């Protein structure tokens, strides 16, 4: 009921609006009809018919809809011409840089800023992209020998990224050129990962496998009827399969990290909450090892740009290491400090244990894959040799820094410096 009522109302409104729009025409018609009536003395029927005709003309569907569609098309066409190159560049998901005849950057979109830090309008492009093939590409396009060209460009450090770069001139005689970077890192990394996996992991996986197959042989042969030995061997085999599973987990998370080389900007992480939940999640381990975790957090908000899950993993790995290898110290301190000003502004998180410490000559190397200070100790603590290399990878993505200080016999301190942006 209400619907129909509303419909009637809108119809009535439409009719009034249309009458109002045609009011001058209608009024002129009335005047004309009346004038004719007055002069010629026509019958009232003719006058009424004329009035009806006028009204019908006013009420018939008008051409305004068609008109507005044409107007819109006209606006759109001029809009495309007037569309700012900046908006267009911002809408492109790949890094895009517009530059002029002297190879000076005119504009770079947000994706370009995210991918290549330290570029700014006014900078000379060939100073930032120094690789010989990029120099040749820029020279070729700027000198006009080729209208457009494509090269493959790889950046090795700090994280490996591969791009297919195309350069071309924009429009006619605008003296502007554009560089578009198509990210090919993923495909490249899959290739490398395969090679790396075979090189590193096969060796690490073969050791537990060899021990399992050895025990299976023993169980089938000499230890066939010995329940005590069988239980013991099965326990060892279970430990070994556990080790292999952990190794695969770590390898996968490392390769996942390598898949997405740089972080999406914009997300903030509350460090206080993150580290608290890491400490909570390590409850079972601290009870098992008898280590007490002490907190020394600075007051105030502790937000940093970053990815929560990844930072969680960083502090989980560091704290787990501190509890395992610094077990003899009996306590681990986690302290958070803040630097407000200067180029080093940011938050420092230090995880300190009071265990045996790390000999100096190992410190620069411990973030390498499968590097172990003490192979035997690492095995008994269920280490995979990848924990710190995951930490380092995540921190590189966060533009953060890991520094390690240690004195033999006095424990080790791992400090993470997260820049405030």
């Amino acid at each position, binding site marked *: 009921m209400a619907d129909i009522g509303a419909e009637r109302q809108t119809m009535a409104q439409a009719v009034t609006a249309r009458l109002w729009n045609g009011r001058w025409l209608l009024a002129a018609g009335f005047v004309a009809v009346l004038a004719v009536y007055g002069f010629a003395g026509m019958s009232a029927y003719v006058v009424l018919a004329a009035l009806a005709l006028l009204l019908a003309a006013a009420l018939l569907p008008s051409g305004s809809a068609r008109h507005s569609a044409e107007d819109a098309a006209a606006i759109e066409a001029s809009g495309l011409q007037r569309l700012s190159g900046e908006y267009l560049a911002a809408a492109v998901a790949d890094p895009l840089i517009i530059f002029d005849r002297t190879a000076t950057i005119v504009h770079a979109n947000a994706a370009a800023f995210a991918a290549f830090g330290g570029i700014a309008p006014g900078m000379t492009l060939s100073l930032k992209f*120094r690789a010989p093939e990029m120099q040749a590409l820029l020279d070729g396009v700027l000198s006009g020998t080729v209208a457009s060209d494509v090269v493959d460009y790889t950046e090795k450090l700090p994280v490996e990224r591969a791009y297919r770069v195309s350069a071309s001139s924009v429009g006619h005689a605008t003296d502007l050129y554009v560089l578009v970077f198509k990210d090919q890192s993923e495909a490249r990394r899959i290739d490398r990962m395969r090679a790396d996996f075979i090189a590193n992991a096969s060796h690490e996986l073969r050791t537990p496998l060899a021990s399992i197959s050895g025990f299976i042989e023993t169980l089938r042969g000499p230890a066939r009827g010995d329940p005590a030995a069988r239980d013991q061997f099965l326990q060892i085999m279970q430990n070994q399969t556990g080790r292999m599973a952990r190794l695969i987990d770590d390898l996968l998370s490392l390769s996942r990290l390598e898949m997405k080389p740089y972080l999406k900007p914009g997300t903030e992480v509350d460090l206080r909450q993150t580290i608290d939940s890491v400490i909570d999640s390590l409850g079972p381990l601290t009870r098992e090892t008898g280590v007490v975790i002490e907190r020394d957090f600075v007051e105030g908000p502790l937000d940093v740009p970053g990815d929560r899950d990844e930072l969680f993993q960083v502090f989980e790995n560091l704290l787990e290491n501190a509890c395992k290898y610094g077990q003899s110290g009996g306590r681990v301190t986690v302290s958070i400090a803040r630097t407000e000003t200067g180029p*080093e502004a940011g938050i420092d998180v230090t995880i300190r244990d009071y265990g045996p410490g790390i000999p100096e000559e190992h410190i620069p190397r411990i973030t390498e894959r499968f590097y172990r200070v003490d192979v035997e100790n690492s095995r008994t603590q269920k280490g995979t040799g990848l924990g710190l290399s995951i930490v380092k990878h995540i921190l590189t993505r966060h533009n953060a820094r890991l520094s390690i200080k240690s004195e033999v016999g006095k424990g080790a301190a791992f400090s993470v410096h997260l820049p405030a942006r």
Partner: protein
Amino acid sequence: MQSVHIVSAYDEELKYLSKRIAAMGGHAERMVEQAITALVNADPGLAQKVIRDDVVLDEGQREIDDKAIVIIAKRQPMATDLREIVGAIRISADIERVGDLGKNVAKRVVAVTDGRQPTSLFRGLEALADLALTQLKEVLDVYASRSVENIGFVRDRDDQIDAMYTSLFRELLTYMMEDPRNITPCTHLLFCAKNIERIGDHATNIAETIYYIVTGDQMAAERPKGDKTDKIVLPSAVPAK
């Protein structure tokens, strides 16, 4: 960026200098990268390419020297411009040395990889090279952006490079003690490591020059020495294995 001069050709000449420096820098980065790859993958072909490529850097340095002298003679540069030009001469010399060191690594490829070595021998060297190349890349990025405010990272990384070099030195000594057949490749690798460590030093030099170009002041003099290999000695008795 540079201010605008009345004679626009002068601007272009200065710009040309910095472009040549960047091109040389990119070339040197590539050479060192390829030298290390050649060493790790035992690829004498790639090593030969690196050795041939060194000519480009020598030429680049000569060209920058010539151009810089001509600009000084013709334009009588003052203040920033003069620093810019003198800096270009210094930086190109440093980059040329980086290229030489990369070439020297490439020359040793055949000697090191004669007889297949275990990959563990190269892992440390790769990590050291990564550090040194990151240093070089970031320094050349600063040359492009002229943002010298946070150039302090250069000194930090120099410390890391020195520490890594010291650690590598120890490791290689251990390998030599374990098996005399390791002595030949390990000695060559020691020289390679030393070369890479020197590349880090040249990068630090370049950073100091950039700081001078932009600010007109010298960087603070303290330059901590983290290289402790001068004190490493072999234990007198071979440890029981």
